[in-house]
């Protein structure tokens, strides 16, 4: 087994930590552009980690360029980083296009809750009157009226969502402007 002289530079390790930490923080945000920034930071962190894994810097890895006693740096790590950078670039461009499309459709690029989440939330809202102790509040309305009011609110929310969705769907792209 080859023993690699691999003691990493502390600065690089710290940089990896900061990049990944900031990346994760941004990844947890709602708008897609911030998520994208998080992904870019994270991928830079991962790339830097590959560089660290390749060992310390040395002479340029071109044979005959350095005296035989000098250690060359590892070209494989750099080749892998280069590949990873290209891949991240392509995916970033795609995510940007998606954020732009989302902005075209909705006026913002926030990632919506998934369908199951929304369904569970809706069920919870529908069931809500059964769990709220309406007797405790003196509002002058009968329980039935209060329940009806709550129910309307739910319907209203559903209706608003439906309208929004239709507005989103109605805005079909022209044949020429879909993602190519």
């Amino acid at each position, binding site marked *: 087994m080859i023993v690699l002289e691999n003691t990493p530079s502390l600065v690089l390790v710290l940089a990896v930590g900061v990049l990944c930490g900031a990346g994760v923080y941004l990844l947890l945000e709602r708008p897609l552009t911030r998520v994208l920034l998080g992904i870019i930071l994270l991928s830079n962190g991962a790339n830097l980690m*590959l560089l660290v894994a390749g060992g310390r810097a040395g002479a340029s890895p071109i044979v005959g360029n350095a005296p035989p006693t000098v250690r060359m740096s590892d070209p*494989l790590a750099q080749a892998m980083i280069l590949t990873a950078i290209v891949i991240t670039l392509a995916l970033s461009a795609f995510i940007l296009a998606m954020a732009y499309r989302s902005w075209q459709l909705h006026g913002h690029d926030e990632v919506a809750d998934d369908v199951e989440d929304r369904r569970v939330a809706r069920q919870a809202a529908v069931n809500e009157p059964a769990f709220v102790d309406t007797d405790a509040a003196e509002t002058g309305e009968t329980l039935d009226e209060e329940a009806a009011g709550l129910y309307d609110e739910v319907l209203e929310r559903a209706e608003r969502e439906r309208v929004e969705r239709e507005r989103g769907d109605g805005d079909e792209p022209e044949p020429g402007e879909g993602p190519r």
Partner: protein
Amino acid sequence: MIDTAALWSVQTLVPLPVLVPLFAAGLTLALHRYANVQRIVSVAALSITTAASAGLIWAADNGPVVVDVGGWAAPVGIALVADRLSALMVTVSGVVLLCVLLYSLGQGIAEGEDDPAGDGRVGGTIPVAIFHPTYLVLAAGVANAFLTGDLFNLYVGFEILLAASSVLLTLGGTAERVRAGSVYIVVTVMSSLLFLTAIALIYGATGTVNMAQLAERLPEIDPTVRVALQALLLLAFGIKAAIFPLAAWLPDSYPTAPAPVTAVFAGLLTKVGVYAILRTQTLLFPSSAAVDQVLMALALATMLIGILGAVAQNDVKRLLSFTLVSHIGYMIFGVALASEGGTAAAIFYVVHHISVQTALFLVVGLVEWRGGSTSLDRLGGLARLAPVLAILFFVPAMNLAGIPPFSGFLGKVGLITEGVRDGSGLAWALVVGSVATSLLTLYAVVKAWNKAFWQDAPSDIVPDRALPRGLVLPTGALIAFGLALTVVAGPLYGYAERAARTSMDGFTYVNAVYPGGAERGQGESVEVSEEGEGS
């Protein structure tokens, strides 16, 4: 050891499943104005791929077929390796990709007649001009992931299919698809970054990313570091394979895509993750009881929670997406047993599940075409209105649930036999869990059957609308392929057992790729570059 002259033709088969679709992708992109030529090129490319892979199945039975890409031997260059497991996976995925391609052509033609705008957006959803190139790139990515013998190249394969799948998922760019696509791409990019981190750490720990060399070096490193690396890889692949705590993205993103796209995703993409788990667990890492127990617990949770999700659904596409998650649990069960028998059963199950899950999604596409919806409340009476459709749904549904004599039954029997042989408490829990999951799957598909096919037809279903032959034939072909798996189950299971044996012992694989300084791959990469011959 290997007679190079005799094997020349066999070795040329190995890169074909990657190269042919990639080349055809470029060709179809250049020919985007000629839809008919595009179709011919795509079908021809995938046919060649499938034929080449079938040849590999036969060739790999005599030992792994290795190709050094670019003429550099293993530790320096990147190797493509077709052993039994890879060859089997590539072939099954080739068949599935071809059937789904024919289906999507049928769909394009059928819906084009309904909507004769002729503006390049056939079916209102699929812009044909980019569909073919993207689909072919996806095929190349899947084949690359299956065939590679290099961990970093596996990452590249994943990224190729990820990029293509995101484009396919968001075809047309409607609001619903952009929403689903955002979740999908962020989750999968995240898993790729975890994979990349794992590669960096593995490279730091061992100084190589070649799988054969890793198989030799990983057992030598500090066990705590090794378990950490293993866990990181499992995390990355677990997201791709949709294992329980990491599966929430799947039922949310798959159902919004066009039917053929959902079908091919459901059949192949998660299985690439399962394949990666199989390969790394069996080849790279020595068996570790702790990891296996965690995997068993996760397999159980995946099965049960997935199928309970399916039972709660009221939309066929979402229902099937949850059964997909649930049945991933079976394959992980087989891997977690860490025995030859368990791995063989898992391989057989993967092959069965790729064909049956894709077929079911294609049938659901037909149901949507015929009934105008995938919601079980708005469907009905299809058994009377479209008897052919009923048969097409019934056969793979029973196959999925594991009713004898279909291949689903045989795969589950294999897994349960191995679980009983293992005999530990967790294995018994998994045996009980798999039977329960099988019954609940039956309950879920029977519920779909009752509502879509037997309840009274709602008034808005068109009474007579003949199913287009272009959609029925590919679906039928894929279902026939699933039935053929039942017919050849004996030889196939034997092949899976041999595949499991080669990937478990590791020696055959390592010796084929990197025979430690014998006739191929002389010297270490470091020495080679220092001697002035390296890359």
